[in-house]
């Protein structure tokens, strides 16, 4: 079998394979639900109502989508410029660490200064964390996939050290946990009494801003050019190295914001389970969104809905919530294949 590139794909060819990919995802999940002894229709119904069925469920889904929007944007920005940032997990924690350092009482600032300060510091921390691998890539040609991926482990161990040492909550009864943020450093809820916090709105604004940067600004044009064809970009006088470094700062900054939003909006303190792999799931989100910043919002909602819905479904019918992981994994695999099929046709030798 061989792949033959398609010069100008028809609209049908651009829509049908991704639609089939989603269909295949649900087929796989349906089969697994059957094996686990559930009625697939009931399972999907419960996932749906579990994710969107009540005000509580909906807000839970939006809250869960928030960090994924940030990390998804971080990945989408980087991948579009062919900077393979696998380190959003560490960048998220770097943002969270800075938020905790500044927000647990060290500074006596009012909320309207405290929150921007924590947010910017978190962005800076995430940005600087990715700047290192980006410099290694541009200066010495070190593969950033390896450096960013492995740095995740180093940084998580560093956070673990911080939570056992300097940042440990003296009132925490020995748990590896930071002190709680002061109320000035907490992102308020959008509507009083409902759990949804302003981090979600911030994530939507971030998505909009990234879209504007991509399409309207000089930097966006440069990032796209470098990503699509660095050789032609360099020949045309685009400062490729500088563009890659700026991309790294933007990407790392977005991931850092995820950490800020989670600590300040949701958890109120830093623990080692702040992120159940949002940095990695962000890759899935970005890929499902075809690296489009507004698509990232939709993809993050989809992923969050599956996780939240599957949790509630498994409580109801006893089909394990692992089905969410499988759905996500198969959605990604089928989608990658589908994207291939929008660009190539398969020929049999």
């Amino acid at each position: 079998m061989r792949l033959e590139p398609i010069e100008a794909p028809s609209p049908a060819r651009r829509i049908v394979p991704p639609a089939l990919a989603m269909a295949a995802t649900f087929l796989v999940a349906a089969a697994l639900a059957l094996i686990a002894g559930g009625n697939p229709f009931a399972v999907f119904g419960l996932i749906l109502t579990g994710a969107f069925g009540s005000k509580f469920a909906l807000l839970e889904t939006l809250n869960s989508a928030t960090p994924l929007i940030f990390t998804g944007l971080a990945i989408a920005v980087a991948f579009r410029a062919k900077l393979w940032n696998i380190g959003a997990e560490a960048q998220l924690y770097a943002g969270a660490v800075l938020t905790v350092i500044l927000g647990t009482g060290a500074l006596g600032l009012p909320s309207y200064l405290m929150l921007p300060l924590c947010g910017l510091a978190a962005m800076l921390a995430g940005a600087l964390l990715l700047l290192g691998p980006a410099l290694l890539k541009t200066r010495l040609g070190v593969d950033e996939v390896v450096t960013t991926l492995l740095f995740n482990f180093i940084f998580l161990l560093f956070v673990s050290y911080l939570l056992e040492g300097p940042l440990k909550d003296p009132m925490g009864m020995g748990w590896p946990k930071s002190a709680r943020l002061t109320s000035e450093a907490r992102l308020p809820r959008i509507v009083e009494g409902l759990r949804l916090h302003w981090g979600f709105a911030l994530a939507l604004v971030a998505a909009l801003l990234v879209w504007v940067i991509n399409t309207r600004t000089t930097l966006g044009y440069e990032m796209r050019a470098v990503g699509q064809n660095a050789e032609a970009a360099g020949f045309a006088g685009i400062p490729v190295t500088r563009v890659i470094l700026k991309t790294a700062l933007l990407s790392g900054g977005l991931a850092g914001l995820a950490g800020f939003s989670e600590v300040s909006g949701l958890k109120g303190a830093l623990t080692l389970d702040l992120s159940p792999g949002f940095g990695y799931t962000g890759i899935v989100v970005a890929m499902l969104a075809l690296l489009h910043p507004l698509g990232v919002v939709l993809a993050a909602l989809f992923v969050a809905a599956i996780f939240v819905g599957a949790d509630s479904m498994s409580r109801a019918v006893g089909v394990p919530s692992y089905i969410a992981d499988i759905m996500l994994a198969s959605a990604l695999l089928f989608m990658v294949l589908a994207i291939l099929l929008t660009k190539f046709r398969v020929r049999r030798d």
Partner: protein
Amino acid sequence: MSTTTEAQVVLRLQGITKRFGPVTANEEVSFDLHRGEVIALLGENGAGKTTLMNILFGQYTADAGEVELFGQPLPPGAPRAALDAGVGMVHQHFTLADNLTVWENIVLGVDDLSGLSLKPREVKSRIRALSERFHLKVDPSAKVGRLTVGERQRVEILKALYRDAKILILDEPTAVLTPQEAEALFATLEEAIATGLSVIFISHKLHEVMAISHRVLVLRHGQLVAERATDSTNREELAALMVGAEVAAPSIESAAPGAPLLSLREVSTPDHGAAPGLKSLNLTLAAGQITGLAGVSGNGQAALSDLLSGLITPASGEMMLAGQSIKNWSARSAIAQGIARIPEDRHKTGTIADFDLTENAILETYASRFSRRGWMDWARARAFTKDLIQTYDVRCPGPDIRIRLLSGGNMQKLILGRVLEEEPQIILANQPVRGLDIGAVNYVHEQLAKARDRGAAVLLISEDLDEIMQLSDVIHVISEGRLSPGFARGSMRPEELGGWMAGHGFDAEATDAA
């Protein structure tokens, strides 16, 4: 019809049709190839030559029609079947493994390299016999990475002969050869034909087609529009058949040189892998002159072009622009200093395939002309692109389509427009017409001549000696990074330049020893 005696038909194409979406690459193409015959396949770029050969070779499946080899129908879409039936193809871009030796490359895919049955001694002696018989001099034990381009081509041909090819397809075989090497290739082909081999020869170069072929098939827009016995046609007729209209090459008058605009003094650059850097090069580009740089590819043209493009800096020596020594040299400063650069590879270096025409048109000037405080002015960029499309006759549906959908000629016109709009003082044109059809070639040449006439200094780098001799006021030859003296228009015959291209003459002034 063929005037020779009815030789055996070895290959028959019957009604071959191939479509890519709305584009018809081949339509109802039928022809026969006889034993011991050379057919030339002539056509503009995009006329469907390569598609047709890929179908014959099983890489594409035809939508309609069939291929018969030696009376047997060829199963469609099976490269192995074509190989086994005795079809050999020498691609324009060689398909050899640099890290293997000549003999290993030749048996690759035929015999199992890891197998115990392989007997290197026998293989090598068979290769030696073949290379003697067909005058294809090459050492079977040499590493391919060390070979010259001409030698590599010989290995490709040997590879086909080793597999007992009865039909040899050569895709633009002389593009990378000196005139002398091309002569040797033709001698080899004569020998091969005498033994009954049949050849399909794909070329743009009319004089080669006239010299080597028995029959000429002309493809235009995927259709076979004409078939001529070579001895009953001429270059003018073939050129007209190719483009469907009488074409006249622009006549370019000689011009007196103006002030020197750019000069290199004893400039050297490091070697880049197998590609040599510049070796103490002296070169002056004068206003109102086209300076031609002839040479076999891979002799330092890339280094010179990269240097003038701002991609590399001299390791030693001095580069002067309008009397000023250059510091902080980069692509952006080259553009700012008024150097128009037409890159060798318009797909890889000149354009970004998935960007639309507007995004490509402003690639070099977006920062200075189409961006304000970090924001792009897309409305102005689009209007600018529309103007370019008009002025430079880029045939396209509009400025919003992706550039990958344009033909090579139209792509090149957009690049030309992009750089010439700035009224550059210096123009670096590296292989500006490679792969273009005759109409586009003439257009590019006219634009270069026009720029020269308004006082620009043009450096034309080309592997096509005809092009160099037709356009240049001064000709230099480059060989292994060294530059010959400048020869005035008309002062050298092609064979003399060929001698310089092969590296003769450079040492004469340097040393009498060795």
